[in-house]
C-alpha cells in the first residue's frame, strides 16, 4: 500500500476568494490519490511577493515567518497551490537560513505572539509534491479517462522555477516537471516559443502586461494547442480575463480554455467539468470534453 501523505494546504488569498474552483479541484483530486489535507486555520496572506514586499521587506519576511511557524507548531509540512505563495515562503526560508542576524531580528518580533521560526518546515508547490512524493505512477493509477489527443500549452509562470538557487525545483531554462505530469494524464504537452514568458501581472504599466499575455497566446496558437495548462492563480487571472481584454482591445480572439493543473487532473480522473469548477471559467471546455469522448452534460450538478 502506498504511503499516506499528510500535508497542510496553504490556500493563499487568490484561490479561496477569487478562484475557489481551483481549491475544489485540489480537494477532489487529492482524495483520489490518498493525500490527506490537514487545514490549519491560523495562516494569513503569505504575504504576496510583489506589492506587499515592495512596501517593507522586513514586514513581508516577518509575516511569512509567522506562517511557517504556524505549520511547524502543528508538525505539518506545507503544500502551496499558488506560485506567489511558493515564492514568498521559500524565499523567506532561504533568507532566514542565509542570514542568522535577520532570523534573530524576525524571531524577536514573533516572540510578541509566543511564536518562533525554527526552519524545520518544508514547503512544496502541489505539482512538486505530485512529482516527488506522490509520483507519476500513482497519478496514472488514479486516472480512468486519459486526456488522449488533448494538446496542452504549458505555462510555467515565473515564481515556481526562479531563482533556482532558492526554489530547487527544476532547470529554470529547460524544465520538464509539468511536461511529465501532463503526459501522466495521457495528454500531449506542446512546447512553444514563449513557454517561459512572464504573464505580465507584476508589471505596473497600462499596456505591457496585456502585450505579454498576447505573445504567450500567439505562441501557443501557432503550435496548435487545445488548451492552456498552468499552476498559478495570478497567471490564470492574466490569461482567462486577459483573453476578453485582448479580444476587446487588440481585436483578436484566441478562445483557448485556461485550466489549472488539478482541474486537468480531475478531468482525467473522470470528474465532470462542473465538478472541478470549470463552468466558472470564461472560456469553456466543451471541445476538450468532446475530444475525450465525454461531451454529454452530467445529469446533476455537484453539490
Amino acid at each position, binding site marked *: 500500500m502506498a504511503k499516506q501523505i499528510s500535508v497542510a494546504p496553504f490556500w493563499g*488569498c*487568490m484561490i*479561496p*476568494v*477569487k478562484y*475557489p*474552483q481551483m*481549491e*475544489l479541484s485540489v*480537494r477532489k483530486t487529492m482524495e483520489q490519490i490518498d493525500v490527506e489535507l490537514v487545514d490549519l*486555520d*491560523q495562516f*494569513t*496572506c503569505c*504575504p*504576496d*511577493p*510583489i*506589492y*506587499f*514586499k*515592495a*512596501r*517593507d*521587506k*522586513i*514586514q513581508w*519576511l*516577518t*509575516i511569512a515567518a*509567522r506562517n511557517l511557524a504556524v505549520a511547524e507548531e502543528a508538525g505539518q509540512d506545507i503544500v502551496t497551490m499558488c506560485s506567489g505563495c511558493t*515564492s514568498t515562503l521559500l524565499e523567506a526560508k532561504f*533568507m532566514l537560513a542565509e542570514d542568522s542576524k*535577520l532570523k534573530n531580528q524576525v524571531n524577536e*518580533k*514573533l516572540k*510578541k*505572539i509566543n*511564536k518562533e521560526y525554527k526552519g524545520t518546515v518544508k514547503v512544496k508547490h502541489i505539482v512538486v509534491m505530485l512529482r516527488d512524493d506522490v509520483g507519476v505512477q500513482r497519478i496514472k493509477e488514479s486516472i480512468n479517462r486519459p486526456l488522449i489527443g488533448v494538446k496542452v500549452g504549458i505555462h510555467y509562470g*515565473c*515564481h515556481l522555477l*526562479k*531563482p*533556482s*538557487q532558492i526554489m530547487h525545483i527544476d532547470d*529554470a531554462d529547460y524544465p520538464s516537471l509539468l511536461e511529465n505530469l501532463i503526459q501522466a494524464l495521457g495528454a500531449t504537452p506542446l512546447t512553444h516559443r514563449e513557454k517561459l*514568458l*512572464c504573464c*505580465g*501581472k*507584476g*508589471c*505596473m*504599466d497600462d499596456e*505591457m502586461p496585456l*502585450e505579454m499575455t498576447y505573445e504567450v497566446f500567439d505562441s501557443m496558437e501557432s503550435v496548435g494547442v487545445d488548451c492552456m495548462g498552468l499552476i498559478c492563480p495570478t497567471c490564470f487571472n492574466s490569461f482567462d480575463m486577459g483573453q476578453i481584454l485582448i479580444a476587446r482591445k487588440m481585436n483578436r480572439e484566441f478562445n483557448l480554455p485556461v485550466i489549472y493543473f488539478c482541474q486537468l487532473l480531475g478531468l482525467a480522473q473522470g470528474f465532470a467539468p462542473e465538478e472541478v*469548477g470549470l463552468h*466558472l471559467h470564461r472560456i469553456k471546455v466543451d471541445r476538450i470534453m468532446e475530444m475525450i469522448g465525454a461531451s454529454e452534460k452530467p445529469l446533476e450538478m*455537484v*453539490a
Partner: protein
Amino acid sequence: MTQRKLDFSFREKLNKIVGGNHHNYCYQCGSCVAVCPAARFSDDFNPREILLKTLLGEEEDLIRSDSIIWKCTNCYSCYERCPQDVRPVEVIIALKNLCAEQGVLPGDINKFSETLIKTGRSVIITSTVNRRRQELGLPDLKDVNVKELQTIIE
C-alpha cells in the same frame, strides 16, 4: 551629454534595506537586460541602467511613485542570470522600500497593503464569495488571525 552627479550617500541608505547591498556587486555586464521581459516589451525599462543610476546615487530619478522601477515584472529572470549575485529584482524591491519610507508609493500598493494589514488577506471577501463557495460545496472562509499579524509588524 549632461554631466552625472555622484552621490554615494544614496548607496549607504540602500545598503540598510535587506538585499539592497547586493547592488554593490554590479559590474554592468547587462546579462539582466538580455533576459528581462519588461526590457523586451518597453522602450525605457532597463535593469542595467537602474543599477547604474543606483551606483551613481541618482535618487531623484529612482525614488518616485512614477519611477521606472515600477514596471519591473518581478519575474526573477535577472536573479537567475546575474553572474555577480546582484539579484537585480531584489535591489529594485529595496528601491521600492525606499519609496515607501519616503512616502512615494503608487496608490495601488498602499491600497493593497492596507487591505492586507486590516484583514490578513490581500483579496477582499465580498458577500458573494462564501455563496459561491457553498455552491461548490466548499467550507465558508473564516476570519484569519489578523491580530497576530498586526502585532508582529508594529
